[in-house]
């Protein structure tokens, strides 16, 4: 109700004139909308603020090293030489390893959930998978550090060496902690994301298209192979890229199991290493203003840009499926 309008008299039946009511609505709505917009701008400003803080604070290393920051082997605060080549290597290797295992299992599991699964099982199974996505990463880190790494050291890595030792991937001294452990933990962590997204895009394949191939005498596998997967391909790719971004940005679990020590460059997954975000997590405590601090923030900037890119790409792909949103909301 508009207040303080002393010059306007109420009508005889005690109501305000219509034009005033309308003006009041209009003003109220504008005000409400304005307040909401303020907070919307705050949210949008947050992204811009992050970009600004990261860029402006990494200028010293950008100016000092330029592109060499990406190719320098040393991250050496003592001599003020900073490079993140081993970190980028570690980040990429662990993420790719994780996807190598998580994608087939995740898509297969999604096929089961979307196609073969009895209705009564679908929701509990999906719920379990979603739950895994919500477990804090420090818990995965704890499991990786206390259970997985010792097992890899005593059993897993010697076994791999014995049977697959001809591959350069499985040579050298087993450490337990290292790229392999980080890759395994990451694979488990991104699995639910791949399952959730793939399942959702498979479930929106039009019923008529499936039925058409069934009517032509197709087996269920042929329907999946020639109808469901081609239809859902774009969305599944989006989900995989989303998972890639998640794996590239994961900090805690990786920091706890990757060993955090650079080794001479090599292809062995047994090597310890570090990633862009684990560098930040390990080094911020010693960071002194100047190049060191700037180097950490540039590492952060690179992580941010990589995940930004993967996220945008993934959302664009999923948007092609006619969905603006995927997964994640329900736990």
């Amino acid at each position, binding site marked *: 109700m508009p207040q303080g309008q002393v010059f306007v008299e109420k009508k005889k039946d005690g109501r305000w004139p219509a034009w005033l009511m309308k003006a*009041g*609505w209009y003003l*109220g*709505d504008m*005000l*409400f*909308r304005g307040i*909401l917009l*303020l*907070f919307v701008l705050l*949210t*949008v400003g*947050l992204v811009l*603020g*992050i970009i600004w*803080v*990261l860029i402006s604070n990494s200028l010293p290393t950008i100016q000092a090293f330029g592109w060499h920051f990406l190719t320098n082997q040393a991250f050496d605060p003592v001599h003020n030489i900073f490079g993140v080549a081993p970190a980028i290597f570690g980040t990429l290797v662990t993420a790719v390893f994780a996807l190598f295992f998580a994608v087939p*299992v995740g898509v*297969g*599991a999604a096929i*089961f959930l979307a*196609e*073969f699964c009895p209705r009564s099982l*679908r*929701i509990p199974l*999906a*719920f379990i*998978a979603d*739950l*895994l996505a*919500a*477990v*804090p990463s*420090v*818990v995965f*880190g*704890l499991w990786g550090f*206390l259970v997985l790494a010792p097992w890899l050291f005593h059993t897993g890595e010697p076994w791999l060496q014995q049977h697959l030792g001809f591959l350069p991937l499985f040579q050298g001294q087993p450490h337990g902690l290292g790229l392999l452990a980080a890759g395994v933990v990451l694979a488990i962590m991104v*699995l639910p994301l791949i399952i959730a997204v793939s399942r959702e895009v498979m*479930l929106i394949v039009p019923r008529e298209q499936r039925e058409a191939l069934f009517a032509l005498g197709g*087996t*269920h*596998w*042929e329907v*999946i192979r020639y109808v469901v997967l081609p239809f859902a391909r774009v969305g599944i790719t989006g989900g995989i890229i*989303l998972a890639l971004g998640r794996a590239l*940005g994961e900090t805690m679990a990786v920091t706890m199991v990757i060993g955090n020590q650079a080794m001479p460059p090599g292809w062995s997954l047994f090597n310890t290493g570090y990633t862009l*975000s684990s560098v*930040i997590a390990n080094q*911020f405590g010693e960071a002194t203003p100047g190049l060191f*601090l700037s180097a*950490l923030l540039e590492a*952060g900037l690179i*992580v941010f840009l990589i995940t*930004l890119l*993967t996220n*945008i790409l993934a959302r664009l792909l999923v948007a092609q499926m006619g969905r603006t*949103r995927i997964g994640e*909301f*329900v736990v």
Partner: protein
Amino acid sequence: MSVSSLFSSRSCSILTLRRRVVNALSVIFAAACIAIAVAILLYLLLYMLIQGAQFLNLAFFTQLPAAFGSSGGGMGEAVQGTLILVGLAALFGVPPGLFTGIYLSEFDHGPLAMGVRFIVDILNGVPTIIFGLFAWVLIVIPAHTFSGLSGSVALGMIMIPIVARATEEVLRLVPQELREASLALGAPLWRTIIQVVLPAARRGIITGVILAMARVAGETAPLLMTAFGNTFWNTNVLQPMDALPLRVFVFTESPYPVQINQAYAGSFVLIMMILIASFAVRWATGGLRHRE
């Protein structure tokens, strides 16, 4: 449907036999995949819960960590710290998230809303350590001290996109007829939203907020460089403050079995928190609803 279709076909030429075998193999492959995924998950959950439950006791919540090497003690200061950090984070994160969600659902369906929605999604995908760096540079470094406040600012920022998204999705579930009825009775849009739409979606919004709080309560990376951790009772948010995941992280790599056991107990609490929040969300969004 699937399994029965394997055996239903009457004709048995060689071609169909091959197709049926391929079909059967695909079922087996898919079933194996889900079996692997569920087995890993159940193993992890049960292992952590069983290990954690062994070492969980009252002292865990009420006592400080024991001196190095001695037994007993708990993570009371970390539990307290997490409660303070998450409470403050909600104070910072819920209003922007809530209002952004309302704006997206109720006011704008044009290109601006699409842009904002996109940014919310982007924000959701930003690695959480980036928020930690942000708060570190803006608060910790100028203040020359790690602080609970900077930690809760970082956590609050992480909450914004989660709350915004949950709010928007829940508001979309409110029937359009409710809004129309209210508008038809002459209520302006803002009153319709505050008195009709929001109350109708209240349960969902509250659980969305709880979910976001549970999510950030498990965050470690952004707290490393902000709240930093502390092994004493501390309620001063301008001082370094402990948090449950931080303590779990530190104790996991401890050489003392007592502390490792407490890390397990801490993980138990973190997982239970997520479990309870997840079930709360299921309950609030209409049972085991899944978009199908």
